């Protein structure tokens, strides 16, 4: 389709495509990006590979910018509620702990609700983090009904004058309709117990995830609504490229990134740093 306009030959474009695929950007988003860049090159040739890469970075940053606000919004008055969701093993519980510390540093005092009543030692795990951060953890016994725990937990938090509630939930595959229905019930119960809540519903996504990440985001978004992504394990070798498809199709912004297993390994999302790291 495209004549080789300037200095950039087919080998260059093939290599660029491979780097994007290798970063989990996905075949379709990659094809669109390469098509756009080659069209520009055809109109006015890039002087060098570096120039083409700079243009690519701009395109990627533009995709992220269109996804929306990366800020975390909790009300100034009344209790702010954060619901943390996602498929199994992505780092939800650890993220709840990190977010607790992050908000504490900003002057808030999060109250935690142990909403995973299913998995072995899930409540114990959150309680350890509660001890380490000094945050109160509300829990009932394993096997309790999650919606009931959340309902009672919010009541307990409010009666304590808590300014922030973070709700940890059990990992669940988005394909499990009963578990997604449970999550929808939890969401309804939250709204009923506290008007306007949850203020943030964060989908926790493992950076090593491939194209399934898009389906995860779509399904969770359609089910309970998602206000932002937490992209975890960016300290791995994974680039998390599936977030571009998520940004493009769902306008879902990344709000936070996890960069390790320790309490302070959580940072607000920096789009240009993320795009730069994609190519390092």
């Amino acid at each position, binding site marked *: 389709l495209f004549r080789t306009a300037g200095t950039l030959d087919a080998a260059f474009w093939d290599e660029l495509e491979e780097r994007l695929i290798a970063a989990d950007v996905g*075949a379709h988003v990659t094809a669109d990006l390469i098509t756009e860049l080659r069209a520009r090159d055809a109109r006015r040739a890039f002087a060098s590979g570096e120039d083409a890469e700079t243009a690519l970075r701009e395109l990627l940053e533009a995709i992220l910018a269109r996804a929306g606000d990366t800020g975390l919004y909790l009300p100034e008055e009344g209790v702010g509620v954060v619901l943390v969701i996602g498929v199994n*093993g992505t780092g939800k519980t650890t993220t709840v702990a990190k977010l607790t510390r992050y908000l504490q540093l900003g002057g808030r005092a999060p109250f935690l609700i142990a909403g995973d009543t299913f998995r072995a*030692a899930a409540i114990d795990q959150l309680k350890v983090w509660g001890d380490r951060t000094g945050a109160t953890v509300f829990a009932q016994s394993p096997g309790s009904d999650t919606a009931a725990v959340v309902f009672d937990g919010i009541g307990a938090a409010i009666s304590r004058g808590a300014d922030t509630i973070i709700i940890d939930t059990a990992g669940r595959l988005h394909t499990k309709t009963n578990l997604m229905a449970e999550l929808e019930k939890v969401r309804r119960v939250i709204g009923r117990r506290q008007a306007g809540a949850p203020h943030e519903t964060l989908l926790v996504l*493992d950076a*090593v*995830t*491939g194209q399934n990440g898009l389906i995860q985001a779509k399904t969770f978004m359609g089910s309970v609504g998602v206000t932002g992504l937490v992209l975890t*394990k960016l300290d*791995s070798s994974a680039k998390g490229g599936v977030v571009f498809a998520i940004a493009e199709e769902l306008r879902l912004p990344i709000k936070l990134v996890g960069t390790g297993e320790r309490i302070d390994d959580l940072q607000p999302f920096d789009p240009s740093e993320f795009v730069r790291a994609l190519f390092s």
Partner: protein
Amino acid sequence: SLTDRLQGIFGELRNHGRLSEADVDVALKEVRLALLEADVHFRVARDFVKRVRDRAVGVEVSQSLTPAQQVLRIVNEELVETLGGTAGRLDWTGPVPAPILMVGLNGQGKTTSSAKLAVRLRKMGQRPFMIACDTFRPAAIQQLVTLGKQVGCDVYEEGTEASPVEIARRGLEWGRDRGHTIAIVDTAGRQQVDERLMDELVELRQAINPTEILLVASAMTGQEAVNVAQAFHARLGLTGLVLTQIDGDARGGAALSIRAVTGIPVKFLGVGEKIEALAEFHPDRVASRILG
């Protein structure tokens, strides 16, 4: 689906006698796309498509199959062959208890799979127990102990103060004294780029000389599956892969990538969160899933 796309491409090919290079190349573009969508590593996809091309060009269009079906059959055969079938055979020769070391990235299902494996081995007449060597993650030991209680399987643990190597060594002695035949050693999740943690695993391997070292990885793993498997394999010598979360809709291309690049066989599939949810690996089922 890939079948529909190929059917659309070959729709007009009704009357040709053989699959021409041009026909095959057009079809293989779709196959490559399907593999990438399934998270197959781009180099593995490229090599795979080359092999299929060699087998498909010039093939007589059979009377009973459409050209699309013809190409698909070759793709399927090649996929099943590559994924290859040393299904679920675990090795526990050597001194008892034979150690099985569970390793992998954070949150992939090692602890859950350890308990699942224990139950399966017991059904096969073995006397397995588990050793809790994750001294880092909060409540990791409690998680393994709870699972052990749920299935009536011994768990050896020493809390979080001792080192994983000490716990594993003493655990094996403890297990031997109690007549256990297999020790499933659960370890902390780690990233292969973390040299210190990879060194720790090498030390553990040298200390207990496992008969099996299983990489546990989620079916939703993307392109990094190759880098992860290669690193763990280079440092430890993996004997098998446990692919978890197959009960979701991730296509699982990581299985093909890992198998093709490292030769490691898929030994088990995690097919749910419950303890019974461990299945034997069947290449044909995983193949059709990868193709979508």
